[in-house]
């Protein structure tokens, strides 16, 4: 793997890329995903990779990058001779592996064992290359817009100066402006580095001019065309059109425009009678604004107030809508018939009809978990339309759709409007936006971080950085102090001593809370109080001789070692904890880094969970009661885990393409470096000493 540290420009000539007779058969697939594929890119050559959905484009890129081999879930034969490569995935949210842009971009350099000082100049250089020098590098990647995140991920690849860039649908989820910026960034790098590139993209018109070669895979994973881009696009135009690729008017032969969506659709029966409005009152209201502009807040508010039976919601994460073993059962949901008006016997027929209109007619009996991202989105759309709602909220319905399916999706959106529904539409798709009747604009908000009033101790609220209210101690100091209090507490022998120590501890904690506003969460006292009382009570009631004093001692001990952690942990940052475990305690770097990523995901997992609860309420399929609650909890847990597992796989790929598992380079072992130093300050020493002093008091006072 190449880890040249030296500056950006230069005539570095790559060795090109050779793929010979490559065949890849994914686990349990009947046929290879790519079959006997051979081609060679000379140094500096850049290729566009085209093919219908499911043609194995992603598989090819994953194999070339070496990430697929890590996943161990495919049979691979043939040869790949590739230089060190960087792979940019479509799902950039799962590619992010840190809580700040700086750490995220530095990840690859850390994997390569580059020293911290060099890393920070590499990071600023890479951010400048992708045009992101303007954003503070301590921002949480989750607060970036889709386009910024894609460029930030690209910067994370560029720190290692890869000689081969592999881009898998890099702009599929972006608006036109953001897509242009991503293309510019890629172009700048390719021109300055002379690296090779392969770009797989359905919507490829913008990419074609900068890619000299085009490779075309057919539906069975064979390479059926390979040549200069203009030539291939001209020769294969009909085929590409038939696959639903987005051959727009900008392409050389320019024959095709997106078809009128009115093509062959009949509006579904009007839901309007429920609210007395006429069909003509339906409209499409586009919600437009950058990430963090309050769109999500507005949407959550609207959904929270919505009347479930009149509302349909297609969330941005379509996986959340799965509610049954098959596609059809998922739309109908086993719980649904009980709550929907019994007279409405046509629900099943309507579901089948909707699925057919959305191109899922052949998939009725398939497991929804086997669907592709684009199919899943159409399933989610069908689900939201099923009850013919008066108000529809659709979040990015056209993402990942080829031209054929785009027409089907847009057709249903328009049909809903023509049936009298008010459609709120959040989308970046410029073609879809053309159909909006009204536009609701959300300006860029001043504060970019999310504030969740109900959960002040959120992991990501603490990431709002800056020295204001900076705590004087670190996670490790807190852990050490907690260990000290635990050790001493178990030795407490007298109620008086334990009481004295506890009261002094409380005073210290209250003083800290008075001094640092971010520690003020009085709510956190309650569980401790309840816990302590029940420990006291049960240790008295269930003891052999029912003495109050020994039981009280146990309760005081529990309070003494529990309180500091309960009250102070809300201010802990996962990343500085990880830095300390790795650098001060010298724990193995990879498990520590992966563990930190798990902690960073907590906020998103909770958002997903909350959305799932909301969605099930709106669909009227939420189960209640003791047994129902238990089943509901099971459903929520399983879907959360499915989503987490899928995301984890993407994250693992993103990590591997940045050298996470590389153990040596040219025979020399690599030791992972840390881009940011671990902190250990005077405050930590004081915390430890304070804990020990309180413990001693508790031990000695009798």
């Amino acid at each position, binding site marked *: 793997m190449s880890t040249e540290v030296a500056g950006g420009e230069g005539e570095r000539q790559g060795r090109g890329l050779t793929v010979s007779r490559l065949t890849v058969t*994914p*686990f*349990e697939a009947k046929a290879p995903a790519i079959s006997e594929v051979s081609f060679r890119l000379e140094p500096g050559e850049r290729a566009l990779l085209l093919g219908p959905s499911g043609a194995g484009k992603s598989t090819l890129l994953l194999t070339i990058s070496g990430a697929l*081999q*890590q*996943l*161990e*879930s495919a*049979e*691979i034969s043939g040869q790949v001779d590739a230089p060190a490569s960087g792979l940019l995935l479509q799902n950039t949210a799962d590619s992010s592996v840190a809580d700040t842009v700086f750490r995220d971009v530095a990840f690859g350099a850390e994997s390569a064992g580059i020293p911290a000082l060099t890393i920070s100049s590499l990071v600023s250089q890479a951010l400048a290359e992708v045009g992101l020098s303007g954003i503070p590098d301590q921002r949480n990647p989750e607060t970036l817009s889709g386009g910024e995140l894609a460029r930030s991920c690209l910067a994370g690849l560029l720190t290692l100066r890869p000689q081969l860039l592999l881009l898998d649908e890099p702009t599929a989820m972006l608006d036109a402006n953001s897509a242009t910026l991503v293309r510019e960034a890629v172009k700048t790098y390719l021109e300055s580095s002379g690296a090779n590139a392969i770009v797989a993209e359905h919507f490829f018109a913008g990419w074609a001019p900068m890619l000299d070669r085009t490779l075309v895979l057919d539906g069975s994973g064979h390479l059926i065309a390979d040549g200069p881009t203009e030539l291939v696009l001209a020769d294969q135009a009909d085929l590409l059109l038939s696959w639903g690729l987005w051959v727009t008017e900008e392409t050389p032969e320019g024959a095709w425009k997106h078809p009128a969506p009115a093509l062959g659709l009949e509006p579904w029966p009007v839901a309007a009678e429920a609210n007395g409005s006429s069909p003509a009152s339906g409209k499409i209201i586009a919600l437009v604004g950058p990430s963090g502009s309050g769109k999500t807040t507005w949407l959550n508010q609207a959904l929270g107030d919505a009347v479930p039976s009149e509302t349909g919601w297609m969330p941005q994460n379509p996986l959340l809508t799965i509610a049954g073993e098959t596609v059809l059962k998922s739309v109908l949901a086993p719980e649904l018939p009980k709550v929907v008006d019994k007279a409405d016997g046509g629900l099943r027929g309507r579901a089948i009809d909707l699925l057919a209109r959305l191109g899922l007619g052949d998939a009725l009996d398939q497991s929804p978990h*086997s669907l592709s991202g684009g199919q899943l989105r159409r399933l989610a759309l069908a689900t939201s339309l099923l009850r013919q709602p008066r108000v529809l909220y659709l979040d990015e319905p056209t993402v990942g759709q080829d031209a054929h399916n785009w027409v089907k999706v847009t057709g249903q959106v328009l049909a809903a409007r023509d049936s009298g529904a008010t459609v709120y539409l959040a989308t970046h798709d410029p073609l879809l936006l053309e159909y909006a009747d009204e536009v609701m604009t959300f300006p860029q908000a001043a504060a970019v971080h999310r504030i969740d009033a109900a959960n002040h*101790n959120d*992991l990501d609220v603490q990431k709002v950085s800056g020295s204001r209210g900076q705590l004087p101690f670190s996670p490790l100091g*807190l852990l050490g102090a907690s260990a000290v209090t*635990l050790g001493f507490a178990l030795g407490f022998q007298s109620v008086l001593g334990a009481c004295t120590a506890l009261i002094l501890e409380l005073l210290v904690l209250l003083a800290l809370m008075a001094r640092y506003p971010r520690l003020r969460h009085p709510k*956190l006292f309650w569980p*401790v109080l309840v816990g302590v009382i029940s*420990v006291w*009570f*049960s*240790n008295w009631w*269930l*003891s*052999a001789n029912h*003495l109050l004093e*020994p039981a009280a001692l*146990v309760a005081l001990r*529990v309070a003494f*070692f529990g309180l500091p*952690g*309960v009250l102070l*942990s809300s201010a*802990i940052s*996962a990343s500085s904890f990880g830095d300390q475990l790795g650098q001060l305690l010298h724990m193995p770097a*990879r*498990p520590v880094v*992966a*563990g930190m*990523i*798990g902690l960073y*995901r*907590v906020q998103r997992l*909770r958002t997903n969970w909350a959305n799932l609860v909301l969605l099930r309420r709106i669909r009227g399929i939420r189960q209640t009661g*003791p047994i129902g609650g*238990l089943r*509901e*909890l099971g459903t*929520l847990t*399983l879907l959360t*885990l*499915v989503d*987490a*597992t*899928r995301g*984890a*796989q993407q994250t*693992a790929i993103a*990590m*591997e393409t940045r050298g*996470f598992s590389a153990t040596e380079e040219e025979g020399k072992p690599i030791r992972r470096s840390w881009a940011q130093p671990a902190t250990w300050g005077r405050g930590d020493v004081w915390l430890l000493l304070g804990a020990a002093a309180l413990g001693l008091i508790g031990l000695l006072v009798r």
Partner: protein
Amino acid sequence: MTNTNTERNFKWRGIDLVTTAILAAALGVAFWGYDVFIYPVASTLGNIYPPLAELQLGVWLIPAVLGAVLVRKPGAALYAELIAATVELLLGGNSWGWANLVSGLAQGLGVELVFLVLGYRRYNLRFAMIGGAISAVFEVIYEYVSWVPEYSVLQKAVYMVCGVISGAAIAGLVGWWLVQTLGRLGVLNAFASGREARLADKEELRKA
């Protein structure tokens, strides 16, 4: 360049680490859901006779069993349980503070011990349940020292029995079931455990 993973490989891959970490974090979030849906009811029942509350213990041991059964490598149970405990600690709203990590350590080691004895080679429902039970034993011993030292011998025994039943029945069963279910859904194809679950499922379908 074939890639069948027939021989045992105890070296952790990146995907082993990050999947375990994220799933453990997700379970941490599910615990939080548990607090909303179940805990109020269960705790009320528990107050009638405190050792009964220990029947919930298994819920907190799920990550350890799930990690071990999923990854099949040394350290998986401990790693998963420690991360879940850290998430719980950081989400707050409980009374345990950093003692959570001591519990996590004890619970993880319990499951770890069972699969160590089995050479990290044998994974089935029965061993998952034994893992959950031994994990509960470790946790209860720690609680003897810190939380219930004054209980009479009889009550301590009842406490242990409740914990062990819960460890086997909840942690063992649910931990095992989750891995099998995720495997059947096809999201664990990168893991030997997931591939086996998927193939077993297909086998059943063929027979039916």
